[in-house]
């Protein structure tokens, strides 16, 4: 019996996957690529198109003579301080939990992610209500609130980068005469340059796009300005010009982030090397490490949740339990839909792009998707035909496209590290291209996919700006209700909604922390 006869005689592998559709892979791949590019380009094309169509020199002069310098300065100043806050609050625990082994390290990782449940607009409303002080109506307070809310993203990003540092580079630099500080300055920081730059761009984009907190605090940033012109003053042409400006700034932030990402991939493309081992900490240092981790989450989680809990205990029951349940159900459904949609799109990408030999254009092109996340939500909302399209499906679609980069890019990075020999071996053993990816690549991507889905779920649950702009009549969610109560200076009433948001997100965050746990803790 020859090989062909043997293959025909043997049963199909038990986990064989039928070809997805009748479409040949290259057509489906091209369709997905077009869809991805369209999702990236739609806000840009809309912002560019409408900004050009509505361009008016007198209006620009009017903006420049009145509010634009203030918008620009507030956005810039807020962004810079927010970046500094986020890098310190997120970077220090990242370094501690990667570099050192101590009792309760897993708990430290979990606590760093908790601020994801308290977006900046929630913290802003809580602090203003609790302490009616001029400080909590200042730009500094806004910057700290945004920085504290964005710190978990910096933590996630830098943890991955720190965990990937090869031990041999530090050992060889020590053998060449470098002491600890020199190793930090000449090896660690240059290697972390790309991830640090990317993290800074991410936080800057968060600050640029933050609407809820800025409007609560009363700081007129570009995003607040756009919202005011669009909804408040009903001047869409000015809104379009501001959207164009916001998009240009986002594109300027995206460029170094994409370059940093590509450079990081290039410098770390070598096969898995021996990584830095975590060093054990003594009891005294362990206490200090925990204190440092806890301090980092005080402004972003401990203080806001403490306030919400205090008011909830004082009230004992929500004002309208049915409304709370309805809002909770809507939030859960939308978050699940967004996470599911992102997962489906990412799996499709993995199957279709890895099945054939992936070109460098696709490898690099996928980074354009980062523009989706960096573009302010208010601009993205405008792109849905100026808000003419609205509805729950539109909210899900807009939020999915906004958050897709958070899953797609880590998966694309993970795929680039998998040796192509694995799928080639599967092909040599009789698998079709899609089967080879399904059986060899996707199982290895499972942790990254799961982590991405959990992160998308949490961020979709707490998302405000897109929901605010695209909500249909009668729609409400936990975040919209919290924002509405805060607008009426009734934040105390929203305490149950805030705690519901925390409860909804706490399990996904715990699972995400578990996925991030060092392998020795996972297998213990």
């Amino acid at each position, binding site marked *: 019996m020859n090989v062909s006869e043997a293959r025909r005689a043997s049963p199909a592998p038990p986990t064989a996957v039928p070809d997805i559709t009748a479409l040949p892979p290259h057509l489906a791949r091209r369709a997905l690529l077009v869809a991805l590019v369209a999702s990236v380009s739609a806000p840009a094309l809309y912002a560019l198109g409408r900004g050009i169509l509505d361009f008016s020199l007198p209006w620009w002069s009017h903006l420049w003579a009145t509010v634009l310098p203030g918008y620009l300065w507030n956005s810039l100043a807020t962004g810079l301080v927010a970046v500094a806050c986020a890098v310190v609050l997120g970077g220090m625990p990242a370094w501690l939990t990667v570099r050192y082994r101590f009792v309760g390290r897993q708990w430290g990782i979990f606590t760093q992610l908790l601020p994801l449940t308290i977006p900046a607009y929630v913290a802003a409303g809580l602090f203003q209500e609790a302490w009616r002080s001029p400080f909590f109506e200042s730009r500094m307070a806004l910057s700290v609130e945004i920085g504290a809310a964005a710190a978990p993203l910096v933590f996630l990003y830098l943890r991955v980068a720190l965990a990937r540092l090869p031990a041999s580079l530090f050992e060889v630099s020590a053998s*060449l*005469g470098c002491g600890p500080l*020199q190793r930090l300055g000449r090896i660690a920081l240059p290697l972390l340059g790309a991830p640090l730059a990317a993290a800074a761009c991410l936080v800057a984009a968060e600050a640029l796009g933050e609407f809820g907190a800025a409007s609560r605090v009363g700081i007129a940033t570009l995003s607040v300005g756009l919202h005011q012109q669009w909804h408040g003053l009903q001047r869409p042409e000015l809104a379009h010009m501001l959207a164009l400006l916001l998009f240009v700034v986002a594109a300027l932030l995206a460029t170094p982030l994409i370059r940093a990402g590509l450079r990081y991939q290039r410098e770390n493309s070598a096969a898995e090397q021996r990584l830095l081992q975590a060093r054990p900490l003594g009891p005294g240092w362990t206490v200090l490490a925990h204190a440092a981790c806890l301090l980092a989450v005080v402004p972003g989680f401990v203080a806001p949740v403490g306030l919400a809990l205090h008011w909830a205990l004082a009230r004992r029951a929500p004002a309208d339990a049915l409304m709370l349940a309805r809002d909770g159900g809507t939030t859960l459904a939308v978050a699940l839909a967004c996470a599911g949609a992102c997962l489906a799109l990412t799996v499709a990408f993995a199957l279709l792009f890895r099945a054939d030999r992936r070109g460098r254009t696709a490898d690099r092109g996928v980074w354009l998707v980062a523009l989706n996340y960096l573009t302010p939500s208010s601009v993205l909302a405008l792109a849905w035909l100026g808000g003419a399209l609205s509805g729950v499906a539109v909210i899900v679609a807009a939020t999915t496209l906004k958050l897709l980069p958070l899953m797609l890019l880590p998966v694309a990075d993970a795929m680039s590290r998998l040796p192509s020999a694995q799928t080639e071996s599967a092909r040599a053993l009789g698998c079709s291209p899609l089967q080879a990816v399904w059986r060899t690549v996707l199982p290895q991507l499972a942790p990254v996919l799961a982590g991405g889905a959990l992160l998308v779920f949490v961020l979709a649950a707490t998302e405000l700006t897109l929901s605010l702009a695209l909500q249909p009549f009668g729609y409400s969610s936990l975040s919209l209700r919290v924002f509405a109560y805060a607008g009426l200076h009734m934040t105390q009433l929203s305490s149950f909604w805030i705690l519901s948001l925390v409860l909804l997100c706490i399990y996904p965050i715990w699972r995400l922390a578990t996925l991030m746990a060092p392998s020795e803790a996972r297998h213990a």
Partner: protein
Amino acid sequence: MLEADALTLRHGPHTLLDGASFRLRAGGRLALVGPSGGGKTTLLRLLMGFDPPTAGALRWRGELLSAAGRIHVPVERRRFGMVFQEAALFPHLNVVRNVAFGLRPAEPATRRERLDHWIERFGLGPLRNRAVQSLSGGERQRVALARALAAEPVLLLLDEPFSNLDRPVRVDLMGRLTDAMDAQTACILVTHDFRDALDFGNELMLLADGRIQQSGAAEGVVTAPASDWVRGFIASSLGRPAGGGQA
């Protein structure tokens, strides 16, 4: 003179190195051979100071470097060079900046001269400004060797630097290394290729299961194996019986 006295390393119930004692004089060439997992890399890491020994002591010219759970002289002050199997080149630096990394402080003209010397010595002139990710395996190891030697180490440790390279490249690199090394620089080569070990060193040490099975002059080890295990290892490595044959 390098003096290792009963160096031992244990991790929990596992003993990775058990009572290794040996001496290496200045300018000596020691080849460390043995099966995978035998403790060769462990020994190198103890010599470098990356890990403290659980027991035993390590001295260089009489100065205590490490002893029983403590590192007395940190890695960066030992002036021991190391070349790893995977080269461990700095990805954010090009070839010439990698080689220049460990150059000792000196006048700029002197540094440039030394840098040019090592670049030329290892045939890296055409590759000076290349990104290290674009180099072949042999080229990467040439850069790693140039970098290690440019720092003028007193002891050079080579952890299977040629294992991923084909024979002609290995022979070429070995030749360059031997020509480039100072007569006073001691060198320890870890390899699982017995022929490389014989080509390289005037002294040989066989390590297995964390213990030194035999050590001494290379010819003496080959012609007079101390145990059946050593005899069998040499025979399987050389493809002929050990004891009484030519090295």
